[in-house]
């Protein structure tokens, strides 16, 4: 069997790629991310922080914040618990992390557990306000703030990125993979009024 057959297809492939007129909200799928959930072992928090700092040059944030360093980022998703991401590292990321910090933390590969949408545009906050019950005002939800919350009965995780070059707000919104199409529909419907475009590479 050829390896190329063993490949994924985006869950959004068959979804409508645009709605309404204009580009009030532009979406794209974040692909290839390595995602790992790390949880400090009991009473190992300080050691873990030191180790992560030393090996990954990353300070683990204490609350629902995201810290970045190169391709790496750690988002606080619970007490002593983070979602770490690494650009285009896929499943190998968790395996590598396990080797380097597994003594102090449980490392669980969740690269496939989520689908992630990058959302930007002049009206992205208004569209998101229809979905998530979190205050996304620029003063309340700053760049690298993280929120885990609920959108139309789905558990979602959201963080804010740097504004785009055009000065528009940008976010990443993720949901359990099985919910991909339901979440997409919700985003699509919320954004349609402002013009929604899904960009595929």
């Amino acid at each position: 069997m050829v390896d190329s057959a063993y490949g994924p297809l985006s869950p959004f492939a068959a979804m409508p790629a645009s709605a309404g007129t204009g580009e009030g909200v532009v979406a794209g799928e974040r692909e290839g991310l390595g995602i790992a959930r790390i949880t400090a072992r009991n009473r190992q928090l300080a050691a873990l922080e030191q180790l992560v700092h030393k090996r990954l040059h990353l300070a683990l944030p204490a609350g629902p914040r995201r810290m970045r360093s190169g391709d790496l980022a750690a988002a606080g998703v619970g007490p002593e618990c983070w979602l770490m991401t690494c650009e285009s590292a896929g499943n190998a990321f968790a395996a590598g992390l396990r080797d380097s910090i597994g003594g102090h933390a449980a490392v669980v590969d969740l690269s496939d557990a989520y689908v992630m949408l990058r959302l930007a545009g002049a009206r992205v906050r208004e569209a998101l306000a229809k979905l998530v019950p979190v205050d996304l005002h620029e003063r309340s939800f700053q760049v690298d703030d993280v929120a885990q919350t609920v959108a139309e009965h789905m558990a979602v995780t959201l963080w804010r990125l740097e504004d785009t070059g055009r000065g528009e707000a940008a976010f990443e919104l993720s949901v359990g993979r099985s919910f991909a199409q339901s979440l997409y529909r919700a985003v699509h419907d919320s954004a349609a009024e402002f013009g929604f475009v899904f960009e595929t590479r």
Partner: protein
Amino acid sequence: MRIECPFCGERDHSEFAYLGDAGCARPAPGAADAQARFVEAVYLRENPAGAHRELWYHEFGCRSWVQVTRDTRTHEILEVRLAGASAAP
């Protein structure tokens, strides 16, 4: 109702799942009267009209169990903290 999750911040209570009375610790399983104590812990929970210590689970958030002190007459929330913190030896 808005519950100030110690980790996530203030959220609507609908993000949380409710368990109830936080006061009923699990009795010692080996005690001679263990059955009677378990019956009490499981079935005879506090049900005051007033301040109530209760457990909520931030299911749609950070998945922490939190202990909320809330007035059951007004729904005013008096205190929130992580549930396990106090029980740890």
